[in-house]
């Protein structure tokens, strides 16, 4: 089996395992708290729109990747292309939801700053792993003119930082709006 295909398979398996674990956690949490995440009608509409834009991006990006692979314009391994597609797609969904007030549910009553800070911390950890790899001599962002496998740490780190920063910016905008 080709190495890149093995990586894709591993990534898909890990994704499936992650989804199963996440679903199990959500189901257990729902049963314990007996309350579902609640969004109002406008928030639901915004979330549907955000999914549409995110999905559209994923489709367009996949098509672009397909053509670059067909014409052998190598810019990143298939594994990185797939990961980058997911990371940017998720980031688009989250950022649209945050700025259109549809990310935080109505029954979320914890401090939003804690959430933002933990997201930023997660981003910093990813960036730290990436920098650590560079320092350790592992090929960094580009390897022979294409994005390296490690570049995914950079992109996921940036995604988490973007989400955390968006939450803080949105909270500041909301505070200003409430004052007015």
């Amino acid at each position, binding site marked *: 089996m080709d190495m890149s295909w093995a990586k894709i398979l591993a990534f898909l398996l890990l994704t499936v395992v992650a989804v199963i674990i996440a679903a199990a956690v959500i189901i257990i949490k729902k049963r314990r708290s007996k309350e579902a995440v609640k969004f*109002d*009608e*406008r*928030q639901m509409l915004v979330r549907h729109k955000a999914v549409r834009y995110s999905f559209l991006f994923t489709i367009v990006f996949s098509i672009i990747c397909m053509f670059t692979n067909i014409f052998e314009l190598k810019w990143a391994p298939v594994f990185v292309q797939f990961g980058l597609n997911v990371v940017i797609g998720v980031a688009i969904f989250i950022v649209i939801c945050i700025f259109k*007030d549809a990310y935080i549910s*109505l029954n979320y009553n914890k401090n939003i700053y804690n959430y933002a800070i933990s997201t930023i911390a997660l981003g910093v950890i990813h960036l730290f792993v990436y920098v650590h790899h560079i320092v350790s001599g592992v090929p960094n962002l580009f390897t022979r003119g294409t994005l390296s496998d490690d570049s995914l740490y950079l992109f996921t780190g940036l995604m988490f930082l973007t989400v955390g920063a968006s939450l803080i910016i949105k909270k500041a905008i*909301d505070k200003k*709006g*409430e004052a007015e």
Partner: protein
Amino acid sequence: MKNLKLKSARAAMDLSQQLLAELVGVSRQTINAIEKGDYNPTIKLCTAICKALNKTLDDLFWE
């Protein structure tokens, strides 16, 4: 188009956007969007707002 009728009815009852939002079970931003005319609420939400403000649909949502 801004919904000034809703805004004035809310202000007349001395309710903040947050309080009205809690009364009708939506987010503050949704009430803000309705007042600014950025969002057209469903009839279900319109009636909930009318009940909370003791107004009719004509009073608040008919031009």
